[in-house]
């Protein structure tokens, strides 16, 4: 429906029609139409998707108890499909800003996107869901959006501003961005991310401007004097929104069914709160903040599958879908890929599932598979017995099993407090020296008793007092008087208990068939980036490298060309490489499918 409303030709016509930017004296609009294309530069597909599952068409030995009858297990080959494009979308944005009085103004932004990937990559993505999420009615991911599987229109900005002297209040749907670091989210704790469009692989220099998910709320600040300002907000809870199942940048293996709704319904009417004080003392910029929030990224655990067709009631599994896990090998590979423990038996031993799994005979089967422990509520396995147990279930009915299985998990959004501070200073030095006008920044956040997803998807979450801090150095340096200064930024982020995506470090170093051994000493990341504009700023050359100290990097070179007031072309590449031991120990492994070249063609009005 939306696609019909906002067809490409309609967008183009609309853009061409909008030749002036004044609606009335006190109102203005601006906008743009943009074609966004990303072409994959690797053979690696997104293994979270059915179509790139490496087990498709593979015939593996059956380790289960029914192997005499069904000696091999095979994932259907016809699920496979390749894609060249990761992204093919048309976007239109309209900004409307108006002055209502000397103290009131109104601001709106409408963003419409048509995802044409299903038309361009018919085999891989035809009919796939990119945008629909079940948080709000009609499968909307956020309250101020209209969504279909392949298109969405939302209001990233819809608010009223009140400004009277030192008081500023903002009412409505809005983003709130805090923090000193770019890309590293240390103090940027207010809003989650909407990852449905280009995940976090857009232009690095644009940070999260397109993905920070807005929320209904009130933000206010009061400037106490020239040096100090206090700020506070309250916003309705809005979770981080993930790409749809089997869509190009899908993050969750599609053998899982994720219950996004139940956990969200528990907190959908909750509100986050926060405050910040900012000041300047002796040339140092200081900020301190506190946020009481429901973690928008959430945590995951097994959940009963009862609500889904094919449910094995009381368990965490659904059978007969044809798109589940087909073998123990697949189970182990995907557990490791998801930084989970493939040998975990919480889905059998924890209270919600004991009765059902016992009724299914799991303890008895464990015994037959020579599991080290097969007591009811305390089934313990080793690699061989787990392979046996899993394959016993994955064996088709003819061999006594149930066939492929999908696992059901849910996302919860724990309540937590985040405290932090930051400091910045512009250093002075001899003209043209390294220290001259070097900006140094430091920020730190502390979250006591932060909850993380357990390696076993247990009902009990991992808890840590999480500390995250970042050092940032920024510098404009002129190498030549003929060119504008080159902008450099170097950042180091340390996270005490989680990786850059918020996954507990206990989940790292996950190898198929083994317990994740985890990482100690925290996770560290380093970014080095530069921008070099041409003398007239018509061209801008960017390069950035995000390095994971545990072996991996994301490099993004690119160029922006703005030949005139209306047109702009961006051409960038995402180069991801996980090096060293491939043990799921860094943020890159598993994302190699995003090795791509992407281009954006913009017409602004």
């Amino acid at each position, binding site marked *: 429906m939306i696609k019909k409303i906002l067809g490409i030709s309609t967008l183009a016509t609309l853009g061409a029609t909008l030749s002036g930017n004044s609606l009335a*004296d006190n109102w*203005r609009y601006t906008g743009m139409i943009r074609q966004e294309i990303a072409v994959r530069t690797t053979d690696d597909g997104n293994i979270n998707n059915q179509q790139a599952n490496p087990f498709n068409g593979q015939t593996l030995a059956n380790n289960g108890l029914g192997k005499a009858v069904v000696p091999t297990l095979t994932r259907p080959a016809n699920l496979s499909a390749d894609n060249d494009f990761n992204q093919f979308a048309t976007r239109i944005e309209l900004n409307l*800003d*108006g002055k209502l009085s000397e103290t009131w103004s109104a601001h709106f932004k409408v963003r419409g996107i048509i995802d044409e990937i299903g038309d361009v990559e018919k085999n891989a993505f035809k009919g796939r869901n990119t945008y629909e999420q079940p948080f709000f009615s009609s499968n909307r991911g956020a309250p101020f959006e209209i969504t279909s599987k392949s298109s969405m229109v939302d209001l990233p900005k819809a608010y009223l501003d009140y400004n009277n002297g030192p008081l*500023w209040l903002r009412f409505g749907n809005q983003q709130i961005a805090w923090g000193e670091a770019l890309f590293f989210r240390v103090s940027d704790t207010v809003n989650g991310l909407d990852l449905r469009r280009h995940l976090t692989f857009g232009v690095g220099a644009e940070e999260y401007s397109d993905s920070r998910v807005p929320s209904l709320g009130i933000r206010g600040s009061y400037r106490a004097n020239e040096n100090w300002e206090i700020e506070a907000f309250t916003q309705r809870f809005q979770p981080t929104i993930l790409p749809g199942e089997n869509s190009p940048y899908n993050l969750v293996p599609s053998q899982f069914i994720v219950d996004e709704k139940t956990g969200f319904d528990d907190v959908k009417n909750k509100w986050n709160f926060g405050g910040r004080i900012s000041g300047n003392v002796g040339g140092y910029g200081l900020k301190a903040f506190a946020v009481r929030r429901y973690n928008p990224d959430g945590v995951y655990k097994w959940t009963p599958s009862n609500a889904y067709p094919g449910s094995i009631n009381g368990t965490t599994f659904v059978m007969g879908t044809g798109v589940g896990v087909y073998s123990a090998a697949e189970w182990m590979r995907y557990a490791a890929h998801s930084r989970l423990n493939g040998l975990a038996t919480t889905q059998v031993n924890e209270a919600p599932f004991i009765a059902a799994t016992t009724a299914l005979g799991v303890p008895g089967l464990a015994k037959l598979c020579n599991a080290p422990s097969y007591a009811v509520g305390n089934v313990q396995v080793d690699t061989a017995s787990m392979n046996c147990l899993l394959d016993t279930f994955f064996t088709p009915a003819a061999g006594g099993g149930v066939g492929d299985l999908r696992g059901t998990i849910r996302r919860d959004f724990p309540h937590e407090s985040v405290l932090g501070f930051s400091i910045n200073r512009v250093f002075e030095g001899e003209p043209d020296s390294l220290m001259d006008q070097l900006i140094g920044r430091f920020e730190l956040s502390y979250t006591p008793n932060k909850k993380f997803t357990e390696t076993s998807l247990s009902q009990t979450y991992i808890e840590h007092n999480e500390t995250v801090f970042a050092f940032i150095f920024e510098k404009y340096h002129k190498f030549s008087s003929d060119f504008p200064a080159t902008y450099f930024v170097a950042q180091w982020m340390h996270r005490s208990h989680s990786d850059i995506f918020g996954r507990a470090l206990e989940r790292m170093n996950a190898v198929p068939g083994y317990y994740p051994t985890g990482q100690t000493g925290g996770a560290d990341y380093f970014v080095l980036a530069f921008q070099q504009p041409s003398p*007239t700023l018509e061209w801008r050359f960017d390069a950035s490298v995000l390095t994971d100290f545990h072996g991996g990097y994301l490099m993004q070179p690119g160029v922006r060309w703005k030949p005139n007031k209306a047109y702009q072309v961006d051409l960038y590449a995402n180069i991801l490489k996980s090096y060293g031991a491939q043990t799921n120990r860094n943020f890159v492994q598993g994302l190699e499918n995003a090795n791509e070249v992407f281009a954006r063609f913009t017409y602004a009005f």
Partner: protein
Amino acid sequence: MAYLLQFDRSYSRRTFLSNTAKGLLRAGLLCSAWSAFARTGSTGTAYPDELNSIEEYTRGKLKAGDVITRDNAEVVKDLLDPVRYKQIMEMGRRLTLAPTTTDMNKLNPPEYIEATLRNRGKAVFDAKGNVVTLEGKPWIGGSPFPEPKSALEVFAAHTLSWGRHDSSFYPAKEYDLDEAGKIQYQYATGWAEMATIGRNVLEPKPYLPGQEDKVRYQSVFFVEPNDMNGVAYLNIWAYDQNQFPELFGYLPAYKRVRRFPTNQRFEPLNPGSELYLSDAWAAGDPFLTWGNYKIVQRGPYLAAVSGGWNSTHPNWEHKTHGGPNAAIFWDTTVELVPEVIVVDAEPTLYPRAPVGRKRVWFDARTLLPLAMVSYDRRGQIFRHFDGSFSVYDDGRGRVMDGKHPYWSWSTVHAYNVQTNRMTRIEQVREIPGGYTMRVNDPGIYEKYLTLSALQRMGG
């Protein structure tokens, strides 16, 4: 008989040279222009007739109302800087002549003129090189050196009060033209300034309590086009002119205000622009971050110190001419300014600046910058700037600033001689979004000159 002058042109030239050699920089050949103005309300008696009238100066060849074109520019070649002469001869620039303005109150805001007269002789440099009162306090208003004795005093006086008002908000439109004279980029911007010292109108005055360590707050923000919508920068100028201003910026990509380094002042803020922060008011940097100030010339000059306001357009927008699209130059009215002081300066604290030297033409009476030429590091002419100013009262329309008609700048040309690219800027009544011109409005500070204002305007 009309041309039997009491003081001929060679008298003027000789006296300018002689006064400069003696270090006598005050405006006026026959007497002090400020004294003449204080006594008679006109600077006319401070100059011989030939410097008060273009008709007298050209011996009747040109008069007010005439248009200078390539056909007659030779007559006034010695009243033009070399770039404007080239623009007229080779690029089709035209200048319309107006009578010489001799009322100082029409060359600067009356409150600034009054404060200048009131505070005459009360300014000195302190040990750090900053302008202070005889009691060692920050400057108290008006021009501290109306009768300067050095090139540094000329620059110092102007740098302390760019726009001559206590606070200003200028809605502006910018047009950036490519080498072929075609508009390549176009912007709608707002520029705000507020003085914290030397205040003549706004209470509290002369200082904003607690802010005596600063000279001004200044911001610039963009409302169009779409990709620049919300981009905003705030400069906070320390009173100590040895320090770089603090710079804060809001970039839509970051959605928050961040602190920026401020020494890169020789780069465009937006694609296509030939105007840098350093170029603002020909004195965009703290005056002690430049050095080697010296006076290189004095004499009459043709400049746009009146008639720059276009009241006939509802948004005060100006007409253009020149080039294949008639879009390179603003239609400009110029008059014979009897005396300018031409000052050279070098960016001593900016070793990598593309500018090796700048030359600024100041109206000797008001120390208002009329034009500027910057030179690259090889000594070649790099860019040229000229502005137009006006009392916003042309008999058909009037814009008030308190008790008096508004005085301000109207248009600016920034022309890159080496690339042939032009940036034109005009002050308009309003830019989209309801941002209208304001002057000496205490609300300018909260609306445009705080960090929360940057965040609010940015979105």
